[in-house]
């Protein structure tokens, strides 16, 4: 399986569940989904990466692009990730300072709610 995407609403925030590998081949699908969600008025997003097995700089670019899009609407894009193998590329690129990265979806939602 290359990449599986799903999304659902929880507490007014849209949760994007990603499973599989995000690379140069599969990243465009995630990009399209994030664009669609923003175009449909979903500006508070949480991308759950707990089942992501691989993420490269193409995937990072898609997430950065998604963050820029939601911020244009005063929105947010947070991540859920505890896997060291995935967190590593965020650390190497310094993107841990750009994204809110949480251990669970509930924690990400709570963090976003507490900022309001």
């Amino acid at each position: 399986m290359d990449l599986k995407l799903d999304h659902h609403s929880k507490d007014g925030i849209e949760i994007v569940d990603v499973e599989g590998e995000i690379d140069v081949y599969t990243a465009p699908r995630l990009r399209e989904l994030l664009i669609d969600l923003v175009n449909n008025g979903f500006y508070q997003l949480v991308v759950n990466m707990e089942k992501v097995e691989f993420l490269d700089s193409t995937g990072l670019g898609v997430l950065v692009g998604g963050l820029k899009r939601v911020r244009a609407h005063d929105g947010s894009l947070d991540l859920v990730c505890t896997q060291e193998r995935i967190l590593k590329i965020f650390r190497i690129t310094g993107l841990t300072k750009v994204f809110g990265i949480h251990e669970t979806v509930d924690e990400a939602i709570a963090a976003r709610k507490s900022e309001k």
Partner: protein
Amino acid sequence: MATVELSFTPLPAHVRTARLVAAAVARRSGVDESLLDEVRLAVGEACSRAVEEHRLHCPTEPVRLALTELAGRFEVEVTDTSMAGGGAEGGPAYPPGFGIAVIAGLADDVQISETSAGTSIRMSWPSAVTAS
């Protein structure tokens, strides 16, 4: 002579193939399990870059990957034959060279050679096996 050579059509779908082959040969070469994710990621980045260059400038030319067992090292060389060099219009949202910056953070030893014939990215990791 490389231990394993791989040549593939410059399609994004084949970058995963290159990652899997590189990881398999790295494991066989004695690269520590804890470094295989780095090998996979670095090779993926180099191949993604080469595929993008070929797609834009020479889509019928294959991207080449050479995997070599050396004494105490496992070396990967990714070669593209795109003569355009640098970033391209309509490219990714992040600055050109981002993938190379990621590679530099993952491999001990990265050498990039740019010639009129294309670009070669060579990187290596420590391995436990002595080359035969």
